[in-house]
């Protein structure tokens, strides 16, 4: 039976939701072990051990792993893969940064962003911005995989009784270091796990207008805020708001696209949403071809009225 090591996405204290979808994907292959790497990660390790269905929780607590630098973390994972058959990471920026480095060190191909596990060596994954779905079989003995979070149910956070085991540090490779970060404080639900998302596009004019128009609606209904690339490029919203092929992939219950035209790169990030609602003044905008509910008109009239009436 396949024994899989899953990368735990965490902030030292708690485990991020992205991990839970990766655990579900791993459980389809067989036994699930976790890796919690970082510095001062007792809280995250304890949480990880409770996730339903997990066996061992390997904990690597060392300053070298504090910022998940791929140069330091990849050799640790390679070492642990001596006794595992597969490595699975959520397709977060950490996962996407680390997994290919692990794959190349093991001399295996990586299967990126899987949507399903068909069998122990066969997976489906999106290509061409999700306009095609490839079914691929891996011929490598060990598998390295990243998982699209929206494609798998989240494993339960409670019910497991994983055995926590410390692993020796593989040390700091001394070729890279962390300088600093500007991490936005989250005042709203996280995009990739939100039930409702309000996204704004180029039509929002500038950062002030974006905030004044989109935020009140989002806050009224407890939604996360997203943006098109055009809105991010123009500085209306920070980079981590971008939804799309090259931004975040989301699949909320309800996605409200405000002044977004619906380019294929944007659709790639949100077309698996359960219900799509589009507000656009151009009745021929491509977004209406995928929207379940559309309203044609000026967003600067519609959005305030909607916010008011909800």
């Amino acid at each position, binding site marked *: 039976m396949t024994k899989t090591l899953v990368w735990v996405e965490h902030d030292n204290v708690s485990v991020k939701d992205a991990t839970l979808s990766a655990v579900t994907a791993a459980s389809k292959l067989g036994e699930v072990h976790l890796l919690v790497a970082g510095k001062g990660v007792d809280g995250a390790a304890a949480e990880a051990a409770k996730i339903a269905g997990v066996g061992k929780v390997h904990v690597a607590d060392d300053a070298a792993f504090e910022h998940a630098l791929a140069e330091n973390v990849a050799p640790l994972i390679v070492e642990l893969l001596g006794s595992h058959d597969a490595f699975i990471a959520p397709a977060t920026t950490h996962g996407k940064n680390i997994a290919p480095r692990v794959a190349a060190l093991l001399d295996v191909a990586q299967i990126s962003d899987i949507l399903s596990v068909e069998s122990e060596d066969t997976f489906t994954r999106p290509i061409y911005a999700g306009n095609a779905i490839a079914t691929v079989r891996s011929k490598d003995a060990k598998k390295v995989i990243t998982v699209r979070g929206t494609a798998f149910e989240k494993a339960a956070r409670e019910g497991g009784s994983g055995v926590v085991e410390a692993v020796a540090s593989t040390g700091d490779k001394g070729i890279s270091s962390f300088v600093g970060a500007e991490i936005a404080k989250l005042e709203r639900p996280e995009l*990739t796990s939100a039930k409702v998302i309000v996204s704004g596009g180029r039509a929002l004019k500038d950062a002030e207008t974006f905030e004044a128009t989109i935020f009140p609606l989002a806050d009224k209904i407890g939604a996360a805020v997203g943006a098109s690339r055009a809105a991010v490029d123009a500085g209306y919203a920070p980079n981590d708001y971008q939804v799309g092929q090259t931004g975040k992939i989301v699949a909320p219950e309800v996605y409200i696209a405000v002044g977004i035209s619906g380019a294929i790169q944007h659709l790639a990030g949100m077309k698996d949403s359960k219900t799509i609602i589009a507000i656009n003044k151009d009745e021929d905008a491509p977004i209406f071809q995928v929207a379940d509910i*559309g309203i044609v008109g000026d967003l600067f009239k519609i959005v305030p009225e909607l916010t008011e009436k909800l």
Partner: protein
Amino acid sequence: MKILVPVKRVIDYNVKPRVKADGTGVDLANVKMSMNPFDEIAVEEAIRLKEKGAATEIVAVSIGVAKAQETLRTALAMGADRAILVQTDDEVEPLGVAKILAKIVEEEGPGLVILGKQAIDDDSNQTGQMLAALLGWPQGTFASKVEVSGDTVDVTREVDGGLETVKLNTPAIITTDLRLNEPRYASLPNIMKAKSKPLATKTPADYGVDIAPRLETLKVGEPPKRSAGIKVADVDELVAKLKALGVAA
């Protein structure tokens, strides 16, 4: 310092890809092909580093069919100094591409290799990280800012919660994100000049690495289709629909 920039020929980003009826792949016959947009950003960044005096020579590399020459000529017209085409009609996976690139790095000795973060056809997002692993170099992926100083480079990365900056020893690998720069258009005189810049043609065999595919594509199919729904006439109707979906204050 020399900079190596791998560039991939892919379907133009404005084209809507169509899956072939026989399920073997995406139909690329008579489809407009262009340089992968992230690779244009990589070429641009290399040129800016050269203009600032941080780099001396830019070498563009592509692994692919004979027509990938056009992609290399585009890089040369933008400002790369010379190009290497590793010609093959076979599909080369990211690991294979990284192995060939690692050999070219050994020959060329660049201080930086700047790649795109992902190619918009296969969306693998792997090649740069794999190359870094094979060379034992540090990697600054999803870069939105690059600053070279002495024998280190500071890379600001677009990460899930915002931005993060890492310091890497050179030589290093960088992969570009969308907001690193806005690539220039090649001017007509530069397009003409690019025709006489050196372009060497090699084959994978010249590098003696194993690029046999590790993945077998069993099928390429259509994603589940969405169809257009209804249009509502006014906000009141929209409010009613949203409330029915459970969305309300």
